[in-house]
């Protein structure tokens, strides 16, 4: 079943890899730069182009209007002298070197009464002229037409009086050559396209360069991260010359490295300690069994060996039990079952459990305080029991161990176990809650797994509380459990 399911799910994998491909920040910035530049340049150029065409069209109209006015005036003042028309147009054409415009004068029936030279040859379609404007109109309302030889003409026509007649007698047509304007505009478009392209390319290149410079610290950081292996957790990122946005990241990364370094250190110390702890009972088991099996022995000897072995097995079992307890409690899903506890009674019961040992050791056990506390009963008893056996192990004959329950502030509860034992220095105080740590001044060096106080700390972690120790060499030690106010 399962293998079949795996087969059917394998083909889509390459596709999903494509979907997950990501652009680099450099590429994104370059694209963004290029896009913005394109947009800005395009709008600017388009506005310029628009303004230019407007201005040209305005000039053309004015020119056309002027010409129409001149021709109308001419027809009124010298109605029957077409030579004037030729003079006027030809003079201008002569000055400019070529015909910039053509004029045609028709009567109302459409017959040509006069026209400038070359009108026929220009190839302008007479039907392309707009409807003539009335006498009272000055705005030429031109249309335009392209001829076969590639010229562009603005076309206008207007009614005109002949002599002193009231009604219009003639139609004036003007074809104004605007080919050079067309060329200018097309040149402008070409240049604009070039500028646009160059701008976009330049922006993309600049974007890449800016991104490269901006991201250089990130690259350095990536190198540091890549070079950071589990054996080199002492490395740190030097962020002194980095921009503010990235120093935060660098500091966070350095902090992470520090805590990783500590955790890995603890873990490796812990596993070597663990191996060491297991080595002693295993060594006893192997050695003893081998020696006994080497020769034939009495049944009683075998029995004694097995009994001794059983003691070692118990030792191994206790170590695994305690470690499993700590490991389970470190699981974030671990929870405690709190009940409302009568601390006086609970403490008395734990003290009673240790009473015989205390009496044998010649140590007085005292309790003070009686308050209520929400806590996990079994865990609380275990923590107190571990603290008591720890205190008893370090207190000489004639000493005293005092258990005190007190309320601190409004709600928080403090439980302390104070002994009059040998105490410890600051180095010991720091390590006393570590797994397998055993104090150098322990009165009975061989009892205990070295896990008792680590378990106490675990129990307090589970209760979101803490355990502290206050001690100095020769001054005894006070272990305090602090249960926080709010649950």
């Amino acid at each position: 079943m399962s293998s079949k399911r795996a087969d059917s799910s394998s083909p889509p994998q390459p596709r999903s890899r494509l979907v997950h491909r990501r652009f680099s920040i450099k590429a994104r910035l370059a694209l963004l730069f290029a896009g913005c530049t394109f947009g800005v340049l395009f709008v600017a150029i388009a506005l310029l182009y628009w303004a230019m065409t407007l201005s040209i069209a305005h000039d053309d109209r004015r020119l056309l209007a002027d010409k129409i006015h001149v021709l109308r005036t001419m027809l009124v003042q010298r109605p029957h002298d077409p030579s004037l028309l030729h003079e006027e147009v030809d003079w201008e054409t002569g000055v400019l070197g070529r015909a910039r415009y053509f004029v045609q004068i028709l009567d109302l029936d459409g017959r040509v009464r006069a026209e400038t030279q070359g009108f026929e040859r220009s190839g302008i379609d007479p039907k392309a002229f707009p409807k003539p404007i009335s006498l009272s109109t000055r705005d030429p309302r031109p249309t335009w037409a392209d001829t076969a030889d590639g010229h562009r003409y603005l076309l206008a026509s207007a009614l005109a009086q002949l002599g002193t007649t009231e009604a219009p007698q003639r139609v004036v047509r003007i074809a104004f050559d605007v080919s050079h304007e067309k060329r200018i505009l097309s040149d402008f478009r070409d240049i604009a396209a070039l500028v646009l392209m160059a701008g976009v390319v330049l922006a993309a290149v600049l974007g890449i360069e800016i991104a490269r410079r901006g991201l250089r610290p990130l690259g350095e950081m990536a190198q540091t991260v890549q070079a950071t292996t589990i054996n080199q957790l002492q490395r740190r990122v030097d962020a002194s010359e980095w921009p503010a946005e990235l120093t935060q990241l660098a500091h966070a990364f350095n902090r992470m490295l520090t805590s990783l370094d500590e955790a890995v250190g603890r873990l490796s110390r812990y596993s070597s300690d663990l191996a060491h702890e297991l080595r002693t009972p295993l060594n006893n088991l192997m050695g003893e069994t081998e020696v006994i099996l080497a020769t034939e022995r009495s049944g009683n000897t075998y029995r004694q060996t097995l009994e001794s072995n059983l003691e070692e097995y118990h030792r191994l079992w206790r170590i695994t039990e305690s470690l499993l307890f700590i490991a389970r409690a470190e699981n974030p899903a671990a929870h405690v079952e709190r009940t409302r506890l009568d601390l006086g009674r609970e403490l008395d019961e734990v003290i009673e459990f240790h009473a015989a040992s205390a009496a044998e050791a010649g140590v007085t056990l005292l309790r003070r305080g009686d308050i209520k506390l929400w806590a996990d009963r079994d865990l609380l008893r275990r923590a107190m029991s571990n603290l008591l056996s720890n205190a008893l192990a370090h207190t000489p004959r004639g000493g005293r161990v005092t258990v005190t329950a007190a309320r601190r502030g409004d709600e928080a509860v403090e439980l302390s176990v104070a002994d009059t034992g040998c105490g410890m220095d600051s180095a010991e105080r720091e390590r006393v809650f570590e797994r397998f740590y055993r104090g150098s001044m322990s009165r009975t060096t061989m009892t205990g797994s070295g896990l008792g106080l680590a378990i106490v700390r675990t129990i307090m972690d589970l209760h979101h509380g803490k355990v502290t120790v206050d001690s100095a060499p020769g001054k005894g030690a006070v272990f305090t459990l602090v249960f926080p106010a709010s649950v």
Partner: protein
Amino acid sequence: MHLLVVEDEAKTAAYLRRGLTEHGFSVSVATTGTEGLHLAREGSFDAVVLDVMLPGLSGWDVVEALRNAGDRTPLLLLTARDAVEHRVKGLELGADDYLVKPFAFSELLARLRALLRRRGGEETIELVVGDLQLNLATRRAFRAGQRIDLTAKEFALLWLLMRHTGEVQSRTMIAEKVWDINFDSDTNVVEVAVRRLRRKVDNPFDSPLIHTVRGMGYVLEAR
């Protein structure tokens, strides 16, 4: 007393069969859940010891199947995982008790006997072993006619040992039953308490009744 042991681990099954047989039980062994369920349905056993991790049907499946069929035979589960959910699950399904591996054999014996007794259900007021007498009602102890003064915990300890005459009581079990300490206490408290009890119960007299079983615990019996 006829027991069924369902356990796939050969060494475990072998020592369970041997140990339980030597303590007066007759033992059948099944090595898979399916076989175990079959045997449990066919034969009439006084109790079943059941591993949770079994090939085929798991121990939980067997418990469920038996309880659904209305079988009330006492069931004791053996589990290698002591996560709370793991432990609770067996009990919720209808098992009577559980032990987490590794466990002391003496503890298994004690729990099995407790399960079998639970069915009997007779309760005694007075216990007598040899010339030692203990009365629960008057809370008095006499040996060879002499009154012995005991503290409350000493009385509870002696009652526990006498109640299970001839059965080894491990330190863990003693701590649990006398002081309600349900965890490995990492101390020699039980040894000290037994030593003090011996001073009162055994030392003044000729033959000791409380014996140390090295590596296992303590047993009270007239030898």
